[in-house]
């Protein structure tokens, strides 16, 4: 079985976001870069499927700059077998990313593509679904449980109002939600082994895909700040202000 997991390099979720004065982006001088938490869950799920099946080829892919090697090595250290870095220095929108992934999928022919449901910097939540449509494959988004028996896959999804179960044959695209699993830490032996694992670089321009962005970010701005509130000293005071001041009860 072949599994492809995608990895995006994002600012650590605890980072205080500072928007540049000209609105062209965020300040990155003090940013700690990590694997998108949902992609970490995707890598972990791929590894668990591999362990359950008694073997599988788990490949990771990223589309980004040279520095993204760091995150791919972390994924390899967790236990993935090999990695592909599609080198792209320009910003790409979700459509372009999905197209690049579709090309890699056509070459690699995985049975399963598993990716985070959204990147915690962009928050678009589009790539997995777009990729599934481009490939003509089933999609199972916001997965909280994945079961594979042969080529039959059953996924429990976190939806509004509860949990939905869907089924389909592989190949398919799954996007991960928070409670699918808890990712393992890379072990020291894992980190050592990762250095020798294959990390292939492919220049994005060699793929012959039109990458012209159709969605462009014109400017970033800070959201309006809330007015500072105050502390109350007792339940009586709280109920009183909610009633007479805020007029919500």
């Amino acid at each position, binding site marked *: 079985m072949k599994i492809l997991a995608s990895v995006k390099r994002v600012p650590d979720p605890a980072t205080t976001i500072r928007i540049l004065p000209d609105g062209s982006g*965020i300040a990155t001088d003090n940013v700690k870069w990590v694997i998108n938490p949902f992609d970490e869950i995707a890598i972990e799920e791929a590894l668990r499927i591999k362990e359950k099946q008694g073997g599988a080829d788990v490949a990771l892919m990223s589309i980004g700059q040279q520095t993204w090697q760091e995150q791919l090595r972390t994924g390899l250290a967790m236990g993935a077998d090999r990695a592909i870095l599609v080198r792209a220095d320009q910003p790409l929108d979700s*459509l372009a990313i999905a197209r690049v992934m579709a090309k890699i999928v056509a070459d690699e022919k995985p049975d399963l593509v598993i990716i985070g449901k959204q990147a*915690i910097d962009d928050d678009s939540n589009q790539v997995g*679904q777009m990729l599934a449509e481009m490939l003509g494959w089933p999609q199972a988004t916001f997965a909280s449980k994945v079961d594979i028996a042969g080529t039959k896959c059953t996924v429990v999804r976190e939806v509004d109002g509860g949990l939905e*179960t869907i089924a389909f044959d592989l190949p398919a695209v799954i996007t991960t939600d*928070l409670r699918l699993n808890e990712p393992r830490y890379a072990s020291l032996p894992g980190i050592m082994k990762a250095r020798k694992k294959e990390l292939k670089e492919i220049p994005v321009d060699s793929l012959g895909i039109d990458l012209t962005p159709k969605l462009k970010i014109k400017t970033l701005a800070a959201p309006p700040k809330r007015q500072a509130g105050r502390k*109350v000293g007792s339940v009586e005071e709280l109920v009183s202000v909610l009633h007479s001041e805020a007029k919500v009860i």
Partner: protein
Amino acid sequence: MADVLVFAEHQAGHFPKTTLVAVNAGIELAKKRGGGKCVAVIAGENLDGPAAELAKYGMSKVVALEDPKLAHYLADLYAQAITALAKSLGAEYVLATATAMGKDLMPRVAARLNAPMASEIVSIGDDGTLVRPMYAGNALATVEMDGPIKVVSVRATAFDSAKPGDSAAPVEKAKPELDPAGLKMQFVSFNETKSDRPQLTEARIVVSGGRGLKSGENFKTVLEPLVDEMGAAMGASRAAVDAGFVPNDLQVGQTGKVVAPELYVAVGISGAIQHLAGMKDSKTIVAINKDEEAPIFNVADYGLVADLFKVVPEMVEALKKVKHS
């Protein structure tokens, strides 16, 4: 002049507030893009009643895609149907609310149309530019999209609901255009979290619990009396859901539900950036936490530094008195 196709999600023929928000946003977008038409589409079975109901909300036309095959939502199935309709209508925008269904469906529609998509927009500029949150809502991005057709999902808390009027739009019944060879998914079951309480995304008051409640049992015995005394919906922080205290669909946050009620009461919630992303647009925010340094107090209008196990029952009693006074 741009026409907008709005996907109107329904729950067994009933339209939640989140759908009426999409209709309103669709009408606004059509107006701001040169005064085009806003067409709403509903899909499923037995649509006569629901279509007639939807038609009162100010759009130009309702299209009812009726077929037993559409009884259960599936991404590839609905993407085919909605995309075919968008093309035949010559719509420039396809729009839906960013509910779980909207998030699952719309990017697939976008890819099928070779169109860009702006997710969870919070406002529409007079020139048709769109604003959407990034970095857990810590940045608002103004975005522009190119091409003959564009897809948009709207954040439910950012727009008002459409209001019903006196006139009804015409309803057109249509059969969905489907390619059976492309349908590869099967609906198995839906495990609904049953509750008599208002829905999180519709309630005027939301009371949320965090890790500070310490157990699912405490949610029931300590928090729920407050939730019910206030006639509120109940929410939770990610920590509480991860710990198994409450089901996943109660999670409020960047990657859970985004709510903006009149009153949000955060009980035993520290206020991580990701939680704030899901509730910081609430009109009035109250925080109850025994840690006075908890970040939640930075967004709270009223903060009570106290042991929740002591003050929440007190609050229930105090509210009962207010009700009877």
